[in-house]
């Protein structure tokens, strides 16, 4: 059951948390977006947790792909890496 949950839910959960973290950090710079700025810290903590769960999931062969995906997403789709990626690609205004 835990394996099934890890295989099915972890990738979608990782992606969802990662995108929400990006949005929260983005909108958090706007003083009017109060709830987002309060949530951004928690979401970032959740993203770190997803990365750790990903590492643990990689230890089992059947959940390895889901774990690797979660770890990669938490490493790539976070506010810091995303800002560096935009800069490196010359896309930041």
């Amino acid at each position, binding site marked *: 059951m835990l394996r099934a949950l890890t295989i*099915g839910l972890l990738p979608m959960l990782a992606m969802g948390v990662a995108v929400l973290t990006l949005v929260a950090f983005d909108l958090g710079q706007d003083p009017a977006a109060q709830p987002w700025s309060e949530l951004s810290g928690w979401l970032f903590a959740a993203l770190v947790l997803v990365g750790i769960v990903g590492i643990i999931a990689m230890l089992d062969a059947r959940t390895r792909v889901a774990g690797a995906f979660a770890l990669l997403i938490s490493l790539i789709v976070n506010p810091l890496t995303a800002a560096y990626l935009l800069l490196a690609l010359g896309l930041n205004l």
Partner: protein
Amino acid sequence: MTATVEQTAGRSIRIPLRPGLILACAVVVVLVSWVSIAFRLPWIIAAIAMLLAVLVTVWGTLSAIVRRSLFVAPLAICLVAAGNPATLAGLGSYVERHAGVLSVTLDRGIVLWAKYPGIAGWDAPTDPQPVDTIALAKNVQRALRTAIGSLTTAYGWAWQIGDGDVGVTPIPNGFGGNSMFERVDAPRWTTDAFDGSDEQRAAAIATAEASAAELGLTQASDTAGAVDTGDGTRSWSADSQTLTLTIAGSRVTLTYVGGPFLSTLSLPGEFETASSGYAGLPLPPTIVTPDVP
């Protein structure tokens, strides 16, 4: 191998669990999601794609467990996790906020619309000449202050200055960046001290006309009502500039707006060079409404 689901009538339906088939379905769902977000198709298509992404996730999980698929079925799940409409919309809005509108063409690769030098919805002249907008803003300020000063001296009017951008500001191109054109705005001067007399009315009109003449604005037109006899608005305009006098009851308002003017910061021929990079490309939908005077 297939999974068997028992139905209430006693019959059973078989769900095919071949990982390759699930992966193929995941690719189709990702493509549909991408098209629905990139081309801003009706939300119902994105909603259907999202539902299919969830179904593929459940289907892939079943395959991974029942068929012990170690790679292909989990990969399908990861694909729809990264490429479902909700994820793509979130990532797309993030990129749009930071890099403006992007489009992909076969011959030019990624097109950065934030660097578009023109303004969406406004046809720039073929050979625009740079205008010294800083000097123009100073002239406008001087002309308006002369008018305000003379009316204040003559009738003791007290003036309020309105909110809004004042001075020289770049005009957004509509795609997340600024165009090479600027606008000039003067403060909105308002007084409620007008007594309605013909003398004050004539003085206000004559003073505004003198300021307009000082700026070279000679084409006068009554855009609403008739300021000579009652409430109304008169504008003096020329060369993308407009000075407006509005009389409404005891309120007299003077405003000025000018533009779009090609920035003097641009080098000769720079606008033409920058525009040529976008020649022949259809304009994408705007994400900001450009405030063209």
